[in-house]
C-alpha cells in the first residue's frame, strides 16, 4: 500500500538501470540522509555520536570494503584489519611529514597506500581460491601486524609503540585530537561514508561490478566471455583495500585518537568478516546491517540493562552479551543464511503487496 511502484514507468534504459528505480526508495534514502546529516547532529547526545554512530559508520565502511572483495568478487580475505592498519599508519606518517596539508586529504590518500599493499597480497589470488586464498590473506594479516609492532619508523619511534594522533583542523575547527567536537567528527565521517558508499554502489551496479560478480559466480565462464581475471581480481583487491584503508585512518584519527598496533589484530579482521556474512554477502546495505548488529547490539544491550536499572554486575552483563550475540548470530543465519540484507529484501517485497498478500 505504502510501497508500490504502480504508475512509475521506465521509459529509458538509464532509468531502468538506476540504483533506486522506485520513487519510495528515493524518498526513503533522502529521508535517511536528512536524518543522518541534519537531525542527528542537532539532537543526539555526545555518547550516542561518539560511541554508537561514529564507530558504526567506520566499521560499515570497512565492511563495504571487505564486501567488495568477498561478497562481490568471491575472494575470501582475512587481511582486513591489516589493510585498515596500513591506512592508519600511512595517514599518520603523511600528516607528520606534511602537517600543513589538510588531514581530510591525507585520510583519503592513505587509502591508496592500503590499495597498493592490497594489490601486492592479492597477486596469489589468480592461482588460488577459497580457503587457500584465505590462508594467503591471513599471511598478509600476520605480516602487517608484525610490521606495525616491529617497524618503529611507522610510529615515529614512539616509546609507547602507539600512534598518537596530533590535533588537525578543518575549516578552522579542530577535527582530530581532544578538542574536536563529536558532531563535527561525525559529520566528516558521515560524508566520507556516504560519498564512498555512493561510489561503491555505482561501481557494483556498473560494468566493473558485473565483471566481479561474473568472476565470483564462475571464474572459468567469466574468462571465456572475455573477462581478464588478473586485472579484475586485482582491481577488486585494490578497491577493497582502499575502502579498508580509509576506514582504518578514520578509525584512528576520528574515533580512537591513538592506537596501539593491537587494534589491527586478527580479531578485527574476523569481526569485519562476521559483519559481512551476517549482513549479507554481496550487498552494500547488508554491510551497514552487519556492522550495526555486531557492533551496536552489545552496546544497546548494555544500555537496556542500565535503562531498567537491573542490579547486575558489569561482568555478568558482559558474559550475557557474549552469549546473546552469539545466539542471535546463529539464529539469524538459520532464519536467513543469505544475511540480514536478504531479510530486508523480503520485508520490502512483503510491503509491496501489503495489506493484500497473496
Amino acid at each position, binding site marked *: 500500500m505504502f510501497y508500490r511502484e504502480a504508475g512509475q514507468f521506465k521509459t529509458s534504459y538509464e532509468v531502468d538501470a538506476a540504483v533506486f528505480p522506485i520513487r519510495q526508495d528515493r524518498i526513503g534514502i533522502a529521508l535517511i540522509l536528512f536524518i543522518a546529516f541534519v537531525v542527528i547532529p542537532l539532537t*543526539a547526545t555526545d555518547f550516542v555520536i561518539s560511541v554508537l554512530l561514529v564507530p558504526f559508520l567506520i566499521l560499515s565502511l570497512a565492511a563495504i570494503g571487505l564486501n567488495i572483495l568477498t561478497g562481490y568478487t568471491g575472494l575470501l580475505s582475512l587481511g582486513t584489519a591489516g589493510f585498515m592498519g596500513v591506512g592508519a599508519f600511512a595517514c599518520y606518517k603523511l600528516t607528520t611529514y606534511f602537517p600543513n596539508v589538510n588531514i581530510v586529504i591525507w585520510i583519503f590518500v592513505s587509502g591508496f597506500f592500503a590499495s597498493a599493499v592490497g594489490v601486492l597480497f592479492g597477486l596469489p589470488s589468480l592461482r588460488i581460491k577459497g580457503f587457500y586464498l584465505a590462508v594467503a590473506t591471513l599471511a598478509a594479516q600476520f605480516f602487517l601486524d608484525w610490521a606495525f609492532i616491529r617497524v618503529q619508523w611507522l610510529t615515529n619511534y614512539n616509546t609507547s609503540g602507539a600512534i598518537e594522533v596530533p*590535533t*588537525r583542523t578543518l575549516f578552522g575547527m579542530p577535527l582530530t585530537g581532544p578538542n574536536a567536537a563529536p558532531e563535527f567528527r561525525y559529520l566528516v565521517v558521515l560524508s566520507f561514508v556516504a560519498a564512498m558508499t555512493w561510489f561503491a554502489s555505482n561501481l557494483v551496479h556498473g560494468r566493473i561490478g558485473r565483471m566481479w560478480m561474473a568472476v565470483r559466480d564462475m571464474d572459468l565462464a567469466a574468462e571465456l566471455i572475455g573477462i581478464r581475471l588478473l586485472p579484475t581480481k586485482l582491481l577488486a583487491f585494490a578497491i577493497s583495500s582502499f575502502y579498508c584503508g580509509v576506514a582504518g585512518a578514520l578509525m584512528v584519527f576520528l574515533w*580512537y585518537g591513538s592506537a596501539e598496533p593491537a587494534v589491527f589484530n586478527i580479531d578485527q579482521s574476523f569481526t569485519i568478516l562476521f559483519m559481512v556474512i551476517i549482513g549479507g554477502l554481496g550487498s552494500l546495505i547488508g554491510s551497514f546491517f552487519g556492522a550495526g548488529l555486531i557492533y551496536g547490539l552489545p552496546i544497546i544491550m548494555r544500555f537496556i540493562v542500565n*535503562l531498567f536499572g537491573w542490579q547486575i554486575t*558489569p561482568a555478568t552483563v558482559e558474559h550475557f552479551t557474549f552469549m546473546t550475540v552469539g545466539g542471535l548470530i546463529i539464529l539469524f543465519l538459520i532464519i536467513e543464511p543469505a544475511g540480514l540484507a536478504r531479510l530486508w529484501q523480503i520485508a520490502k517485497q512483503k510491503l509491496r503487496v501489503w495489506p493484500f498478500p497473496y
Partner: protein
Amino acid sequence: MRMKLSIIAGAVALATAMTSAPPPAAAQDSIYIPLFTYRTGPFSGSGIYIAEGMRDYLEMLNQRDGGIGGVKLQLEECETGYDTKKGLECYEAVKDKKPVVINPWSTGITLPLIPRAAVDKIPVLSMAYGLSAAAVGDTFPWIFNPPATYWDGGSMILSYIAGKEGGGPEKLKGRTIGYIYLDAGFGKEPIPLFEQLSKDYGFTLKLYPVAGTEMQNQSSQWLNVRRDKPDYMIMYGWGALQPTAVKEAVKINYPMDKFISIWWPSEDDAAAGGDGSKGFKVLNWHAVGADFPAIADIKKHVTDKNLTQTDKNHIGKVLYNRGIYNSILIAEGIRNAQKLSGKKVVTGEDVRRGLETLNIDAARYKEMGLEGFAGPVKLTCQDHNGHFATYMQEWDGTKWVRLPGELKAMTDKVNPLLEAAAKDYTDKAGNWPKRTEACDKAS
C-alpha cells in the same frame, strides 16, 4: 502483521529513548568514581584481583565512614575486558556523570585519555602503568602515575642484579641479561632504558618479545633462552603471559632465582610452575597479606555482609592489595581535595589538585589502619610519580616472602630519558597546551 508493526514501533521508541534520553544525572550529594575493570577476557586472571581490591576498599569507606568527609562515594564498574575500544566506550559513558578520577587499568586505554583529560577536566590515575613520561607534571598536569614508572622498575631490577653480583652497576659488565616482554606499548617502553644502560654498563641485552596473541605459546622464546643462556631474565608481562613464562622457565630448568619480574605477577602466576618456581622474584611496593586493621574492616563491613562478589580467598593476595593501594590513592586524593577546596562534594578539578598535593606519610597510613602497608607517597606539581623505592619479593612455593633491602630507581639515568620522552610526546602532538593550572602548596 500487527506484531511486526509493534516491533517496529518498539524499535523506534527505543531509538528515540536512546538518542534523546539525557544522561542520568549524578546525585549531587555523592562523589562519583567509575572503576574500569576487567573480570572477563584473557587478562581477567590479573584483572579480577585488582577489581575486587579497588572496589572493596572504597565500599568499606562507604560502609564504615559513610564515604569520605561524610560524602558517600558512588561507585560504578565498567567492564573493559582490557580492550581499548570498550575502554573508550566506558569513558564516553561515564564522562557526563562528572567522575572525579579515571583509573583505566590498561596502557592501551590510558594513551587516548591522556590528551582528553585536560579538555574534559578529569584527572587520570594510571598507577605505575601507562605513559612513563606522564610523570612530568608540568607537561601532563592531569595525569598521575605514582609510585614508580616502568623505567624506574627496570633500573631497580638492574640494580638488584648488580647487588646480587656484589656491588654497584659496574658489576653488570660482561653479563648477559634477557628481557622477555609483552610486545605492546607496555613491554616495549623500557627497551630504550635497557639499551642505554647496556651501553653505559657494558652488559649484553637479549630481547624476547611475546606477541599479545601468542601469550600462551612461548616455547620458541624459551628455546632461544636455552640457547643464549642469559645470566638473568627480566619479565614485563600481564595476564596469561606470566604463568606461561614461569612454566616455560621451569621446563627448561632456568634458575628461578635469576628470573625477575616487574610488579605484575600474582600468586597464581608464580604457582603455575609448581615446586620448580621457588625463588622466582618480583618487584613490589606494598605489603602482601590481610594483617591490617583496614583489611579487617573490609572483611567486617563488606565481604561478611556480602556487599561484594569478592572471593574471600583473594583477600590479602598481592594484586588484591594492589587494588587497595590504588583506592588509597583515590581516597586520599579526594580527602586532600576536600581540604584544599573547602567543598564536600569535590569535582575532577579539585581532585587533580588533591592528587598533586598528595602526601601520605607513615602516620597517615597508621590512621588509615594500614601501618606499614606501603612507603610514603608525596607528589608535587613537577613530579606526578615520585619514583619511590620498591622491594624485591621471592616466591617460596606457597607465598611471597619479602627480601630485605630497598631498591631505588637510578634517577640520574631515568629522569633525563623521562624529560626527553615528555618533550618528544608534546612535539609530536603539536599545539600541546601549556600548563595553566596553578600549583597548590602541599596541605
